[in-house]
């Protein structure tokens, strides 16, 4: 029972990390029509900045702030220097340019920080484990990540549903040309949206640092799953990103955790492990295929 609860929490926590990345990606894709493969690089930059500052100063708060600042600043700079020229171009050009950015940032980071992964520590106050009802001990830091994710989801809901900026964002997602025709400063809106996406990626990166290893290419590992999330959730929809991320996080974790055990009942240990291992790596893609068969535009399509 405790094992099931622990795995559920693990799945939720993974889902929250995916959500922080997917929120930015889905907004950029949905509103600006831009495929940004370099979104993972912003996550990596956030992680590196946070790990670097965290190790130097010993302050977790400063580390998070550094991660946010570095990712947002890089995001805004990239939008103004590179991506702005690509909005009217074909998706293929965007893919090529942002893939180039991945190579650029990966190489840049290995020049700045070397190829050796950085090590960030969980802050001492959050390092312990909390005893949950039922006697399960769960790391505090992972609970904090979940709480942060919930906070960000609430903030985005308020921002998008109840503010003027949010209104423009929603309008931009569904009626891009009309928004432009009404005289809204679209370039500024785009920069702001992209900056917000970068900020969230930076937040995910700086929180991931103490859990995962901060290394070159860490963004690409998670980027593919992030794309799966936004496709499942419906491109351009933040609500879809929340649901999609939690679904993907839970399915990935639960299948990984329990499938080999279930298969062991019907086949030998070794083949159960290899079949289970193989199946768990495709489970999220299977989920995506099923969702798309049922709802070809994702669960919550933004473009009506």
């Amino acid at each position: 029972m405790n094992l099931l609860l622990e795995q559920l929490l693990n799945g939720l926590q993974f889902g929250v990390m995916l959500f922080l990345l997917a929120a930015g990606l889905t907004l950029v894709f949905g509103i600006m029509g831009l495929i940004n493969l370099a979104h993972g690089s912003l996550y990596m930059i956030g992680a590196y900045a946070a790990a670097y500052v965290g190790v130097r100063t010993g302050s977790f708060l400063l580390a998070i702030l550094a991660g946010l600042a570095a990712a947002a600043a890089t995001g805004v700079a990239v939008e103004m220097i590179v991506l702005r020229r690509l909005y009217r171009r074909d998706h293929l050009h965007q893919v090529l340019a942002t893939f180039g950015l991945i190579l650029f940032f990966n190489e840049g980071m290995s020049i700045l920080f070397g190829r050796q992964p950085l090590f960030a520590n969980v802050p001492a106050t959050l390092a312990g484990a909390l005893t949950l009802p039922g006697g399960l001990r769960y790391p505090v830091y992972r609970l904090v990540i979940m709480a942060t994710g919930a906070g960000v989801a609430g903030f985005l809901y308020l921002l998008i549903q109840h503010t003027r900026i949010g209104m423009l964002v929603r309008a931009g997602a569904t009626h891009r040309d009309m928004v432009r025709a009404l005289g809204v400063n679209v370039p500024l809106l785009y920069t702001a949206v992209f900056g917000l996406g970068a900020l969230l990626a930076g937040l995910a990166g700086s929180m991931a640092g103490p859990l995962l290893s901060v290394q070159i290419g860490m963004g690409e590992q998670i980027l593919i799953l992030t794309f799966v999330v936004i496709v499942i959730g419906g491109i351009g929809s933040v609500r879809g990103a929340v649901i999609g991320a939690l679904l993907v996080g839970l399915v990935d974790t639960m299948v990984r955790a329990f499938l080999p055990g279930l298969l062991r009942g019907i086949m030998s240990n070794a083949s159960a492990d290899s079949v289970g291992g193989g199946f768990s790596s495709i489970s999220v893609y299977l989920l995506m295929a099923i969702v798309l068969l049922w709802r070809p535009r994702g669960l919550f399509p933004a473009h009506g």
Partner: protein
Amino acid sequence: MFRLAVTASAVALMALPAMAADPVKIGMVTTLSGPGGYIGEDARDGFKLAIQEEGGNLGGAPVQVLVEDDGLKPGNGKQSAERFLTNDKVKIMTGIIFSNVAEAVVPDVLEAGAFYLSLNAAPSNFSGKGCNKNYFVVSWQNDTLHEAVGANANRLGFKRMFAMAPNYQAGKDAIAGFKRVFKGEVVGEIYNSLDQTDFAAELAQIRAAKPDALYQFEPGGLGITFLKQFAQAGLKDTIPMAVAFPSVDQRILGAVGDAALGLHVSYHWNTDFDNPASKAFVADFEKTYSRVPTTYASQGYDTARLLASALKAVGGDVGKTDAFRAALRKADFVSVRGAFKFGQNQHPIEDWYAGDVVKGADGKPMVKTVAKILTDHVDAYAKDCHL
């Protein structure tokens, strides 16, 4: 008059032994980028250190090392090797770190009539029936790494162990090798994906299985992440861990810090080996590169020294293929591991040691050798190789 003098001296220079103008080319395909990039970097630097110590020569013959990054992609490795073999007419190749790259590249090298000296990867399909007279391995046979962990677990008296490795060939070989020697019961096995970053689900399963100890083979970046999360989950103090050195090499140790304390490691070389060759190597490496050498670096260094001994025997002429091969087989060099000899499949017959991760004098964690666990260990495939 001046021009004449210049021409004359140029001619005189050309008349020097042809060897001097024509260095032996060595093709090195290795992994320099990505999370595993530091491994190739260290192997390369260890190899080059041996050349630097001889002032640009190996065994008295001038050498030129051509290095290319395979990026851990077999296709890239194949292309680089082809370039070396056809354009540069390279006769000696080395450098590959990962077995999946080796499996793609090594057959091409051997088919072209060149020699391959492996400084790391040693997959089983080239160690038994598939062995080759021009294929030498200085590091180990892949399985022996994990057989040593099994021996170490027996020594430590673990009865019920949990095994975990990435879901690819080397991971499966790892668990198979471990089981071959481990006498107790394996209570659970997990094959995680190769690009996994969060092990929370696996850690929960390990906690639930309550084993005496955990055996894991998570090399490079995987190992760093795993060790950190293992400590964060509070398992470090309840479940001991026995691993082969790739899961906790000197770089990983630097990255995870205290989270590695108490680990039981097995290896064939460590920085604290008490022999003159090893001491000189560590001192020289630290002086040249300002960092602690990994075991991979020692393998690169030994490979270059082996090559030096063979080049010396043939006077730098790799064209004398049979003599060169015979000289390689003799392994007439002083290894940093101490004794070194090849078995009938031209893989090393070597000793394995166990060590624990403890706090060093400088407060940083280090591996301290505590016992020799296998002596003159021969891999399980050698008997199938008939050269």
